[in-house]
């Protein structure tokens, strides 16, 4: 069974180190905040000047002055703080974040990231903080469904969509697998139980390598 979106987020959350400073991209990555391991202190950063983003507020407790980069109401954890936008992007661009978990349209086998525009002529383009995050955090990991709704692969030899940054992605969490970007190519670390490696390759444009200790990708029903 492919993972559901919340399960992808759960899986990515399991890899977060105690004490890590992490930015969560809009959409699927934002769900990671629901699954932070309770035995670790992980500090979430938001582009709009929050260090220490907490859970969504309770009903009627939302403060319009306290929102995350996705414009959703949030809270601040104990120990958190506020900075202005320029200092927030100093954090982002200057290598101060241990990790950014980002969404993507496509990732190439070299780790190129395309996550800002699909060139849809019906919409004006928007880049937000995607390019700053992609070159600035110490490590970039991507959360994405393995294929588009029409079945087209998102893990490509080369990205078809305009790049956000070249050679930056180190790991990809999909609904089917956990895959590392290595100098040798895409290395499958974990795969869901009910598809085999050949099926995974069929859904992936870039060639895949199997890790010697390839493991099952399992996630609880969350």
């Amino acid at each position, binding site marked *: 069974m492919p993972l559901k979106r919340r399960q992808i987020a759960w899986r990515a959350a399991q890899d977060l180190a105690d004490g890590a400073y992490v930015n969560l991209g809009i959409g699927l990555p934002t769900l990671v905040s629901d699954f932070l391991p309770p035995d670790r202190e992980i500090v979430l950063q*938001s*582009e*709009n*000047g*929050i260090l220490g983003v907490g859970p969504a507020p309770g009903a009627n407790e939302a*403060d*319009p*002055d*306290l*929102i*995350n980069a996705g*414009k959703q109401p949030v809270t*601040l954890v104990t120990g958190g703080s*506020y*900075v*202005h*936008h*320029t200092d*927030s*992007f100093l954090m*982002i*661009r200057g290598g101060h974040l241990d990790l950014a978990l980002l969404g993507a349209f496509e990732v190439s086998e070299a780790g190129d990231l395309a996550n800002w525009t699909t060139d849809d002529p019906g*919409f*004006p*383009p*928007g*880049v*937000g*903080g*995607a*390019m*700053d995050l992609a*070159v*600035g955090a110490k490590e970039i990991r991507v959360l994405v469904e393995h294929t588009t709704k029409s079945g087209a692969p998102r893990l490509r030899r080369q990205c078809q969509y*305009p*790049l*956000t*940054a*070249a050679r930056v992605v180190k790991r990809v969490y999909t609904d089917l697998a956990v895959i590392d970007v290595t100098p040798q190519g895409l290395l499958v670390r974990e795969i869901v139980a009910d598809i085999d490696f050949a099926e995974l390759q069929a859904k992936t444009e870039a060639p895949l390598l199997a890790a010697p200790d390839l493991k099952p990708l399992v996630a609880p029903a969350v």
Partner: protein
Amino acid sequence: MIDKRVRGLAEAVAGIKDGSVVLCAGFGGAGLPDALCEALVEQGARDLTVVANNAGTGRQGLAALLGAGRVRKIVCSFPRSSGSVVFEELYAAGKIELELVPQGIISERMRCAAAGLGGFYSPVSVGTRLAEGKEHRVIDGRPHVLEAPLPGDVALLAADRADRWGNLTYRKSARNFNPTMAMAAKLSIAQVRRIVELGDIDPEQVITPGIFVDRIVQVAF
């Protein structure tokens, strides 16, 4: 005596000229100078270039300024959001020019102008469409692009507290672009929730010192 309080919104935006570069603060729904934007519609300045992270939502604030046809060009990181209908219509009709800039680079370019510097080299956008036409330079083995300062003629700001010297504080994530825009414009105008006595703001807690602020007006928002 220094007294940056003005009597109302009309006086707050008085004198803003046609063709001005207007830095418009806020992110999402927080820290938006909606009352000042709407006063600027009344004031009548046109042919404006607006620098803002988002391109307005609904029909209020920046969207009202856009909807009134006063904005020739917007410099923006993320123009489209839920409710950015006014901008989307103008864009589809070819009635507004869009310069798309990464969010941190908009902010850093304004700071560069505020700091009296001539430009900076940044690794952001290298290898992407947004770096096309920019001067490139490899520094310590890493390619960079040259980014230019982005000064404003006017900044429209929203703050929480102010005193008559123009010292400002903000609440939570409503701080966002406000401090940088205050520093980067020749004329900085803040709508504020409360005006307090000089000395009521702890000197350690002033976020925008009054030197960067020219006019303050109290409004409910």
